[in-house]
């Protein structure tokens, strides 16, 4: 059994993003997905600080401090891209105009609850940013994360123990070991890495998992 690395996970997510989709890639791991979107397809990347048609990082020396993404990193604007204010930006999200949002997570429940904004540690300074808007806004919310924590705990869980970001909002989870579809009835395994059985996956997660019906 060989786990997917970060780039392989990003490439896997990119395969499910069709031409013409309006997409927001969250800060961190999801940002990598942009590197694997096919150059011959037009896909619109939105950044919630106010741009649509976001391009790659600029060449060294060409950075513009007033042209940044939601992670406050310098970016470029593609030809045909545009700028807008924050209320319009979040209307794109909350109004259901964005097709896909890809987010990282601390935990996801089998029915699609997402926890990705706060560890719940009493001494942590809370910060939410656009996480709650992103979670519930897009037509489809995908999560990209390692399936297990460093000490082997499953991040796909029956019920989130961390404070939730949104309820029943995640429809698909891409991990280094498997891809899951989530709905009100629980998690369905739609892909596994080579050499990993459904039984082993159930053992690792401690969850009852269904296997997708294959033709």
């Amino acid at each position, binding site marked *: 059994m060989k786990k997917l690395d970060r780039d392989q996970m990003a490439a896997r997510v990119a395969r499910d993003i069709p031409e013409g989709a309006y997409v927001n890639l969250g800060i961190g791991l999801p940002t990598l997905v942009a590197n694997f979107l096919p150059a011959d397809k037009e896909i619109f990347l939105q950044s919630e600080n106010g741009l649509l048609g976001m391009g790659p990082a600029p060449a060294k020396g060409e950075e513009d401090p007033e042209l940044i993404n939601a992670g406050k990193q310098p970016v470029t604007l593609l030809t045909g891209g545009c700028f*807008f204010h*924050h209320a319009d930006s979040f209307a794109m999200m909350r109004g259901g105009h964005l097709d896909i949002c890809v987010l990282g997570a601390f935990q996801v429940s089998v029915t699609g609850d997402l926890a990705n904004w706060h560890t719940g540690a009493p001494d942590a300074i809370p910060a939410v*940013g656009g996480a709650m808007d992103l979670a519930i806004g897009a037509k489809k919310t995908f999560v990209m994360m390692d399936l297990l924590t460093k000490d082997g705990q499953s991040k796909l869980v029956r019920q989130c123990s961390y404070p939730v970001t*949104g309820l029943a909002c995640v429809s698909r989870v891409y991990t280094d070991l498997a891809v899951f579809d989530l709905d009100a009835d629980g998690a369905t395994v739609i892909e596994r890495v080579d050499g990993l059985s459904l039984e082993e996956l159930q053992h690792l997660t401690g969850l009852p998992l269904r296997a997708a019906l294959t033709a």
Partner: protein
Amino acid sequence: MIDKCMATLEAAVADVFDGARVMIGGFGTAGMPDQLIEALIAHGARDLTIVNNNAGNGETGLAALLKAKRVRKIVCSFPRQSDSHHFDALYRAGEIELELVPQGNLAARIQAGGSGLGGIFTPTGYGTTLAEGKETRRIDGRDYVFELPIHADFALIKAHRGDRWGNLVYRKTARNFGPIMAMAAKTTIAQVGEIVPLGELDPEHIVTPGIFVQRVVATSIATAATARTA
């Protein structure tokens, strides 16, 4: 003749009073009106409530205002950053109050304030700790949280160009909160890179109509004036 242009940054913020609620534009440092904030620090108003997306970066702008201990409360979405050490220290010492608002709700509440609405029902935050104790309603099968509008006494924003009627255009992602904060404050003060003659801004391209802006100050001119008096 109506001329909203101010000669200096100092004059532009001279009536900000102790205890005022002040919106400050910007997402991180993009669009942050640094020079108006410097003028506000020099002016000395304290006990302020600040509305901004963040809680200061590094040593300048909002971070400097926090460091000078002029802020009683901050309303923002994302205070904790790698370079928010002045906020972090005040928060841990219990010297600043934090109202944490999801970013889209912050924008919508500001827009509601500027639009004369009594609040919004938003799906963002439903079922989370940030919605605890708030009114909720199910509308067409979806759950919403009621959130109040946000108003301010002053808004300090940064725009690219402006004219003497207060019409503004912005530059790239520095636009962010500028247009909606301009609507939601009793007195909106815009720091602009350049003041252009009336008519030079294409009316089809004006982003913030002058009705939302009370004062415009060109940072190049004001900087020169500051240098002369120094």
